[in-house]
């Protein structure tokens, strides 16, 4: 049983270990972290051979909450992806970050911070894919969001980087809150947050559409799908290792992963899946078209990511068994390309396609390795990418010709922009640049090798993808996914050939259509969601300024604007409830005379405060109210309350008098004079508030329960060894409340001490 947590513990240990290694020597952080990640990967692989398992650790059993982890094909595939790409990217950053930090003018020690953040992100990702509980899913999702904010905004001196980080935080954070709403709705519907139980109950009672839409929104925001896609290109302001990790194998994969994990819920909801299908195709189109014209390399890749996750979304929406395979095959290709452009930026200092060309002569190894990655992304045979498109076409063939056509165009566009990117970097007239450091190239080569191995030996992929599919897409059944090359005229092969032809044609004629497409896309970006976000932000800013001005213009109006509506609301509530006719005046006997007299005294003193001419009189009248009330408490046979009240009131009166001594006389007089000009509407506000308080308390006093807790406490107090029932209630029965209110008192004390510091100025 405890074996299951070994990979999780190892991945959680990466970041702290790297931190301590970095304390010793900054360069060691990356190596230690990567070694730890590889160890976690090894533990994971070994465990996956043991078959699926679950681990349940009780957390708050009374609330039915427990920490639940799972080990199945899906979590295994995604965790392996996160760990392997993570280890490579960390090593790559060892070579990349010192240069980057030097360019930013930051100390080299910051590299440790960067590596720790990357490894924390990896841990959060592993956690996300291994938990088996809706609430934990949400928590892990938010962890990834927070760490990604820190990573994207790593260049904190760069305003663009900060804005991009904020944008991604706002979008993915807001959508994950929507996800939380969906998770809560499901939890309430099924009475549990444990996923296996939820799935079991969903089989007989389908989940509500609203909850599913909420879950889907959370996933779409994470996966940067239309209409939430615009955070991803902005997030390219981050250092390249961040982009290559977060935006190939980790963060954006999380959204699609969520959909796959929760697929059993979506399976019966055909309408929701149709919506996802439409969004998937839309993201494909938007992403591919933008990738065709974008100039900075990283933006091309970002738009390509949007498009590629659109494919994955389509596969999920169609319920295809190939969805996990698609994501897994895409990750190494995309990561390889990201790392390539990062290396090129470091070597040349350029960031745009229009500024570089012909690098194949200076960087031959990088060119070869990235060609493999690009081929994988474009789904050419002999790479693992071929199979991602094969499962894609396979799913579309079953849907009919229209879908096949859409898939063909999408795949053709993919080939076109991939060619454009690779050719733009490495083809064309020769440019001579210094050679790239080996550590920058090695991870790309490893990734390219994995892409090739997957393409040459597809048999290796069958078992993990089947396991992943069995864990999500075909729940409970066995997957029949087949991966092999077929040299015949089946529809999938024909579609692939058509896509390559289309892509090649588009690439060959690129000079003719690029300017037009650029203009069209620029035009649409003015009305797109990104524009909407900007406008929204601006308007919110203005609204907050306006509210602030309104609020502080006159403090009295602010107070009145709270009290009057509350009072009116209270009276309305009383009016519409059936309790409105049942006011009980209560009887007044001879025994009550003292009480009434004390109350009358308090009221008279309170009324007199309004007319007080001078502050000392005012304070005396206030304390008079307090003492009269203490008298009331005494007559009401509440000696504890009365005693405390008298003592507190005395102290308070003396303090107040002390305050008056502190305030300058002149100001007091002037303030006094000005206070004598009351406004009519203040009287009305006070009247409404008072009337509402009167009616509400009368109603409350008229509906006291006959059988109250009080009588019970009297009986229990004897058992609690406390004849004074009030003390028993305070210390024992409601002890937790007392602890809470003591912290309030202590907070007030701290407030007083910090406001009047011993050695403050003057």
């Amino acid at each position, binding site marked *: 049983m405890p074996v299951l947590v070994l990979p999780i513990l190892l991945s959680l240990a990466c970041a702290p270990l790297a931190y301590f290694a970095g304390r010793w020597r900054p360069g060691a952080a990356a190596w230690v972290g990567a070694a730890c990640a590889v160890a976690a990967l090894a533990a994971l692989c070994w465990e996956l051979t043991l078959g699926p398992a679950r681990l349940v650790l009780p957390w708050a059993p009374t609330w039915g909450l427990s920490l639940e982890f799972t080990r199945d094909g899906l979590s295994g595939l995604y965790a392996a992806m996160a760990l392997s790409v993570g280890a490579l990217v960390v090593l790559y950053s060892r070579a990349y970050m010192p240069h980057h930090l030097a360019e930013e003018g930051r100390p080299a020690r910051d590299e440790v911070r960067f590596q720790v953040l990357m490894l924390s992100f990896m841990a959060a990702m592993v956690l996300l894919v291994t938990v088996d509980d809706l609430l934990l899913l949400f928590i892990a999702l938010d962890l990834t969001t927070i760490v990604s904010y820190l990573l994207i905004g790593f260049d904190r001196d760069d305003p663009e980087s900060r804005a991009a980080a904020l944008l991604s935080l706002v979008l993915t954070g807001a959508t994950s809150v929507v996800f939380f709403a969906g998770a809560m709705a499901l939890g309430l519907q099924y009475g549990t947050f444990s996923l296996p139980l939820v799935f079991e109950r969903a089989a007989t009672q389908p989940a509500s559409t609203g909850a599913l839409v909420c879950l889907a929104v959370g996933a779409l925001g994470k996966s940067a799908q239309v209409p939430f896609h615009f955070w991803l290109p902005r997030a390219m302001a981050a250092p390249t290792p961040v982009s290559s990790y977060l935006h190939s194998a980790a963060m954006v994969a999380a959204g699609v992963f969520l959909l796959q994990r929760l697929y059993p819920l979506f399976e019966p909801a055909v309408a929701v899946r149709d919506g996802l299908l439409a969004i998937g195709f839309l993201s494909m189109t938007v992403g591919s078209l933008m990738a065709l014209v974008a100039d900075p390399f990283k933006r091309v890749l970002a738009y390509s990511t949007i498009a590629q996750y659109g494919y994955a979304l389509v596969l999920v929406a169609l319920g295809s068994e190939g969805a996990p395979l698609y994501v897994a095959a895409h990750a190494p290709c995309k990561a390889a390309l990201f790392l390539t452009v990062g290396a090129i930026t470091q070597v040349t200092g350029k960031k745009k396609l229009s500024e570089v060309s012909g690098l194949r002569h200076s960087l031959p190894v990088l060119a070869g390795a990235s060609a493999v990655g690009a081929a994988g992304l474009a789904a050419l045979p002999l790479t693992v990418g071929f199979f991602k498109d094969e499962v894609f076409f396979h799913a579309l063939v079953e849907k009919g010709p229209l879908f096949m056509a859409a898939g063909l165009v999408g795949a053709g566009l993919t080939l076109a922009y991939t060619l454009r990117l690779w050719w733009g970097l490495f083809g064309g007239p020769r440019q001579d640049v210094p050679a790239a450091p080996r550590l920058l190239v090695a991870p790309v080569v490893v990734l390219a090798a994995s892409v090739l191995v997957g393409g040459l030996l597809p048999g290796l992929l069958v078992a993990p993808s089947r396991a992943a599919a069995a864990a999500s897409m075909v729940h409970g059944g066995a997957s029949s996914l087949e991966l092999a090359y077929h040299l015949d005229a089946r529809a999938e092969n024909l579609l692939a050939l058509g896509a390559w032809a289309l892509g090649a044609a588009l690439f060959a004629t690129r000079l003719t259509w690029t300017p037009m497409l650029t203009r069209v896309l620029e035009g649409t970006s003015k009305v797109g969601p990104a524009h909407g976000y900007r406008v929204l932000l601006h308007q919110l800013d203005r609204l907050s300024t306006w509210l602030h001005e309104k609020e502080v213009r006159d403090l009295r109006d602010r107070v009145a604007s709270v009290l009057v509506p509350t009072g009116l609301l209270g009276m309305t509530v009383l009016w519409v409830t059936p309790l409105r006719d049942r006011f009980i005046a209560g009887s007044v006997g001879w025994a009550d005379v003292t009480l009434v007299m004390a109350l009358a005294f308090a009221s008279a003193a309170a009324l007199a405060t309004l007319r007080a001419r001078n502050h000392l009189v005012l304070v005396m009248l206030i304390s008079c109210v307090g003492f009269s009330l203490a008298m009331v408490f005494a007559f009401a046979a509440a000696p504890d309350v009365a005693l405390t009240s008298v003592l507190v009131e005395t102290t308070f009166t003396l303090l107040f008098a002390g305050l008056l001594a*502190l305030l300058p006389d002149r100001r007091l007089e002037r303030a006094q004079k000005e206070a004598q000009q009351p406004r009519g509407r203040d009287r009305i506000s006070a009247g409404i508030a008072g009337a509402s308080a009167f009616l509400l308390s009368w109603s409350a006093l008229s509906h006291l329960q006959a059988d109250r807790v009080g009588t019970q406490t009297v009986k229990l107090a004897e058992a609690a060894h406390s004849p004074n029932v009030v003390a028993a209630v305070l210390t024992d029965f409601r002890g937790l409340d007392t*602890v809470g209110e003591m912290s309030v008192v202590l907070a007030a004390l701290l407030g007083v001490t910090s406001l009047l510091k011993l050695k403050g100025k003057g």
Partner: protein
Amino acid sequence: MRSFVPPLSRMLLWPSLIIALSFWLKGGGEVGGGFPAGALAGLAVLLQYVVTGREQTRRYVVVRYAAPLAGVGLLLVVGTAFLPVLAGYTPVSLFPRPGQPGMGAGAFHLHTALIFEGGLMLIVFGLVVTVIDRFALSTANQGDEGP
């Protein structure tokens, strides 16, 4: 002529504090408890401030360390409330438990509630004394820089 008020007030301090302590100790059985005890003790100190001034009053250790005392009080309260959790009881379990034989005589009961109430007393006392002290300090400062 020397006023008889300062000596009298100094004489009143200790009886007041003893009464406050008795409020605390017999709170479980009769009228009293931590709140009034703390307020009364605070009031006794307040009287000293009013009559003899800040410098004289701060000679008492209790007064100088009033704010840390409140912190100790919070520790006592939280400790009584949550230490039983470590032993597997629910929060705010007091000892002796219901059903176990109690100890004590008259209004005085030996009970962990007593520690709890003691914490309340220290907190309230600390609050009162600190506020007074800060006000007195401000008065003194203002006197210095006054016209």
